[in-house]
């Protein structure tokens, strides 16, 4: 009897640790944050001591031009980073999709950038962008071109480049995996029908890869909103607010200005923004998946 009970309880016992940990360290904090966002709360108070101010934090933020600028920077950063990385990553995957010896070595080298700590990536690029001792300006100088103030005049572009360096391989490797798992029959059929390489890519490979590409893009998009350390080390949000993405602003509001309530409200705005984007992407995926299924069916029929 006791064995039977153990067997009946065991699923719960297997789940329990994970559930408990996620409840106390993820769900409860998120609820706590929502609760805190209605309060005028500074780090030296416990939340109970903080005064309840209703929606004040949200309204202040809504009217705060700096906050809006920060959202703008975040969206611009995410948009450019994701779209450029997608184009480059998928392009490289299509280009390098062939059996060459040493491909695994190459892949190892490509994943190196994303394994390295963002903090270290930030400092490497900060060094390379340095106005006088940096690699780029040294190079420009040696070939007689004027120096560029990378982290001053072109700060946002510079951090976008650094992120592209770190994360394009991610998309490259996923696209490559997707490419190599495509049904060979469909590609064969297309080649026999005399489709040019471009037509193959455009009409067969890309549509078939689409579901994976969308998930990949979504993951990158979500991660683009998480980028913080690289920017913190490279520019700390400056000059002005030109690189102050939302994550960085939240952390500065909490630690530097000591307004936990406002930071919590900002966090909620960020979450809502992310949720909207995810839902939109999901809806888009469903439509694309339906289309991909049609293409696949058609391709298989043709073969």
């Amino acid at each position, binding site marked *: 009897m006791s064995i039977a009970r153990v067997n009946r309880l065991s699923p719960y016992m297997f789940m329990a640790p994970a559930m408990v940990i996620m409840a106390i360290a993820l769900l409860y904090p998120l609820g706590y944050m929502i609760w805190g966002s209605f309060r005028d709360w500074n780090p030296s108070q416990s939340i109970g001591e903080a005064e309840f101010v209703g929606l004040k934090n949200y309204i202040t933020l809504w009217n705060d031009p700096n906050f809006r600028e920060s959202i703008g920077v975040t969206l611009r950063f995410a948009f450019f980073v994701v779209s450029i990385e997608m184009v480059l990553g998928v392009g490289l995957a299509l280009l390098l999709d062939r059996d060459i010896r040493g491909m695994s070595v190459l892949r190892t080298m490509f994943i190196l950038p994303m394994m390295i700590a963002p903090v270290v990536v930030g400092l490497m690029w900060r*060094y390379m962008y340095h106005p006088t001792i940096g690699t780029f300006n040294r190079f420009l100088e040696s070939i007689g071109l004027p120096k560029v103030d990378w982290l001053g005049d072109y700060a946002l572009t510079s951090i976008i480049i650094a992120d592209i360096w770190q994360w394009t391989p991610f998309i490259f490797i996923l696209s490559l995996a997707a490419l190599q798992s495509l049904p060979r029959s469909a590609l064969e059929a297309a080649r026999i029908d005399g489709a040019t390489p471009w037509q193959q890519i455009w009409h067969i490979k890309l549509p078939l890869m689409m579901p994976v590409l969308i998930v990949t893009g979504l993951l990158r998009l979500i991660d683009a909103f998480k980028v913080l350390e690289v920017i913190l080390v490279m520019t700390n949000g400056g000059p002005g607010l030109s690189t102050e993405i939302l994550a960085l602003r939240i952390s500065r509001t909490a630690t530097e200005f000591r307004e936990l309530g406002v930071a919590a409200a900002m966090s909620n705005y960020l979450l809502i923004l992310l949720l909207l984007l995810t839902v939109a992407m999901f809806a888009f995926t469903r439509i694309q998946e339906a289309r991909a299924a049609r293409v696949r069916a058609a391709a298989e029929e043709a073969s």
Partner: protein
Amino acid sequence: MQNQRANPAFFAVIALLVFMSVGPVLLMFANSFKLDVDIISGTSGLLFLPTIQNYETALCDVLWYEPEHLDFCSLKFGGAFINSIIIALVSTVLTLVIGSMAAYALVRFRFMGRDTVSITTLMVRMVPPAVLLVPVFGLWNNEFCLDKDGLIGGAIRDSFGGRGDVCLAGTHSGIILIYVAMNLPFVIWILQSFIVQVPRSLEEAARVDGAGPFQVFFKVVLPLIKPGLAAAAIFTFRIAWNEYLLASALSDRNTKTVPILIVNNMSEFNVEWGVIMATGMLLAIPPIIFTLLASRQIITGMTAGAVKG
């Protein structure tokens, strides 16, 4: 199309890509062996006298001798390195054990549909660490505390010293807890796809031999999903090893991790490039080793996350 294989342009592209992805790392490696004077004055390229002085400065608190060029040891990199190792290893092991158990339960006992799990995973993955900063900071410092006059709190204070109420903030456990929670959904997601492939008959055979559910899990299932565990381990370790923001909010002077030390060291008064590069290199070494040894598992983990999901 096949004849393009010999195309020199093709190899030029590959060479360029390799150069671009590895170049900055090599640059950092080279600079970590240069004196600041050499870095700043720009005696360019590889013509310099390598020195280990930067590494001596960084590691001064664990060296058995006192480096001659230092007046006092301010960096205490060794301590931070040990903290990083403890936190990353413990949180990786915990995440794997707890996560694989949960993944097993989800697959074998059909708690929720795979869709629910995928959506939950995606939702949790969506939460940026910066969003957790405020609540975790508040909870770990103020709520998740034991009264120092209480039974357990008092015992902890008596045996470990320190002052004030016993709170999660400032302890290794506090940082480990949040890392485990952050990584769990991802690990569960990846491991599910491996557990599905374990043939049921093996488990049933073990059960007939009289093994309980936990024995079946640890002795039969876990060994079979080793590749999945390896992939999940690398990803968990990477996040725990590299994370800065939450650790900086939760650690105190004794539990600082390496990323915190590096950010702190980019201080206002003296950017000592050589030393910073050396600390960066030391932080990057474990991930680089993993990449070289286990790139296949990393790629498995990445593709399992996106392609199969």
